[in-house]
């Protein structure tokens, strides 16, 4: 067992909790998400997270954009000219032309680029008012959701929705790099910021391989999902899971959720939905498995998730080793310079 990365059976125990409840988390089954955003609202209500910008983003029905200090749940909406196995072609036989998805993405991207943090502040900051005027850009340079198929007359269509949340990693980049101990591992195995300790150094923001945690404007402290630590303490499930009408967000003991997810995946594969996959379920992945993991219907990057994240701490030993070598060289150079120069 390596405590910096890889599988870890007892995260809370590893963090020093002696007698502790089982590790809990979320299994978000995006195949049954209806995009109602009740999770976003319930989360904000319960945790008193501030409103963060009244922007029409043009990203389908997503006007939240991304997880951030002021968005602890984020529902992604992806429109694609393809269909899931059990679905019938939506627009077959209609007088349709080519898909408009490249055009819409082409109108969104310049607005994001014009934002101070490249659009990664969505969920913290409003976009600059107006932004550049949307233009008809023709085919954009990069492939976006759905670009990989391009029938002249669109027939297939699907609309993916997925509620994203902090992953509560087994090896959490944010927690590892926090210099004040404000971020800590709870007895439930979750990762929480202690607001009375955080001094807003911002290191966690760059430590997170998922782009989840961020510093709150006008407050200066880091904020993210607490997996409703206060509710857990009272034996309640987190607000988002409670509010989810279709059980897309399932809360429970992580071991049990993993079994449930495996069964659901097998069921979908049996139905021919071969593109269904679990994301963050594998304890052997770069973060030792997520406490909040997902069933997705496309590649993670389509939902804005990194395909193969790893905790930076994985490379800490080698980084310090290289730093040590460099430090030695530095000292050596200094010593040599004076030795060569001799006494005066």
């Amino acid at each position: 067992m390596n405590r910096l990365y890889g599988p870890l059976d007892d995260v809370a125990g590893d963090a020093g909790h002696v007698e502790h409840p089982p590790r809990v988390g979320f299994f978000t089954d995006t195949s049954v998400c209806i995009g109602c955003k009740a999770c976003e609202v319930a989360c904000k209500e319960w945790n008193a997270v501030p409103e963060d910008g009244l922007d029409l983003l043009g990203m389908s029905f997503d006007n939240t954009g991304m997880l951030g200090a002021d968005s602890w749940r984020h529902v992604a909406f992806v429109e694609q000219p393809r269909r899931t196995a059990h679905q019938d072609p939506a627009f077959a036989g209609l007088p349709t032309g080519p898909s408009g998805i490249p055009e819409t993405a082409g109108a969104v991207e310049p607005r994001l680029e014009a934002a101070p943090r490249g659009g990664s502040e969505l969920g913290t900051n409003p976009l600059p008012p107006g932004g550049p005027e949307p233009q008809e850009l023709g085919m954009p340079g990069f492939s976006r959701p759905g670009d990989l198929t391009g029938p002249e007359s669109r027939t297939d269509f699907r609309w993916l929705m997925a509620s994203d949340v902090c992953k509560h990693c087994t090896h959490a980049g944010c927690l590892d790099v926090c210099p004040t101990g404000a971020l800590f591992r709870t007895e439930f195995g979750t990762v929480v910021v202690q607001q009375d300790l955080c001094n807003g150094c911002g290191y966690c923001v760059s430590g997170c391989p998922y782009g989840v945690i961020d510093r709150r404007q006008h407050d200066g402290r880091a904020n993210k999902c607490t997996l409703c630590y206060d509710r857990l303490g009272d034996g309640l499930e987190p607000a988002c899971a409670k509010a989810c009408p279709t059980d897309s967000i399932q809360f429970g003991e992580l071991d049990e959720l993993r079994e449930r997810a495996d069964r659901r995946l097998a069921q979908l594969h049996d139905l021919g939905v071969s593109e269904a996959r679990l994301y963050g379920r594998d304890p052997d992945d770069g973060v030792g498995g997520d406490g909040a993991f997902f069933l997705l219907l496309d590649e993670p990057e389509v939902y804005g998730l990194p395909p193969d994240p790893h905790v930076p701490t994985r490379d800490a030993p080698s980084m310090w080793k290289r730093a040590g070598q460099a430090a030695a060289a530095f000292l050596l150079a200094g010593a040599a310079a004076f030795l060569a120069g001799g006494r005066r």
Partner: protein
Amino acid sequence: MPEAEFRSYYGRPVLKAPVWEWKIAAYLFCGGLAAGASVVAAGADLTGRPALRRSSRLGSLGGLLASLYFLVSDLGRPARFHHMLRVLKPTSPMSVGTWILSAFGAGAGAAAVAEVVPRRWRGTWPARLLGRLARPLGVSAAATAPGVASYTAVLLSHTAVPGWNEVRDELPFVFVGSAAASGGGFGMLCAPVAEAGPARVFAAVGAAGEIVAARVMEHRLGLVGEVYREGHVGRLRKASEALTAAGLAGTLLVAHRSRAGAAASGIALLAGSALQRFGVFEAGVASTKDPKYVVVPQRERVDARTAPS
């Protein structure tokens, strides 16, 4: 080079761009300067170069104070900077760095203060004690200076930011080189030519190392190398290399015979070092703003793993 094919969520970044501002780049530079200067100061002290010692000790403290100012003022809650001292956390380079800086700061600070005790207080016992302790404290600062010079590289690389994380093997060498160049350059700028010989050597070795390490770093980088080469960052780093190279040339060719030449070379090295830090800093920020630097390498990794062998 053909555009990379990849998929994303409306072209939106996957990662959060660092919340750090230019102050962090300035902090990197000032910390490096402090480290380099402290080595020069200790060496000068031990080898009897009082002018070099004095200016380098002061430069070291100045660099340290500036870096602390930049660091603290970039906090979301500056009044809580001391929370850094609650814990020592090996997994957090910032925590480790805080303690290294603390250890360094005690020595570098005391040694510098010893230089500026007003004449009329020099007879008092605390001043005499300080005078006696200045050397060991200065040497202790020099002993921790390599940590100060190199930890900032780990600080940046120990993140999910592709532009920093993927240069983790070379960045320490770039940063110590930059620190040495700036520390030596500072000595050349402030001390007489006669005393500054070791500073010139130190600066030259540092500058050369920095240029080589940076070249290796860029050369080895894959897709994310774009952020180091292109646009604003590319211009910054080209300027940095040019200044450092010029400073190096000046150091080797004119600094030993011309006070003005030495000063100019020192300034060039300092500027080159500063631009190096800003360049690396900005490169990392840029690498978070475009999802391709996150998605493409990771996708390639996944595909390589899952590809039928």
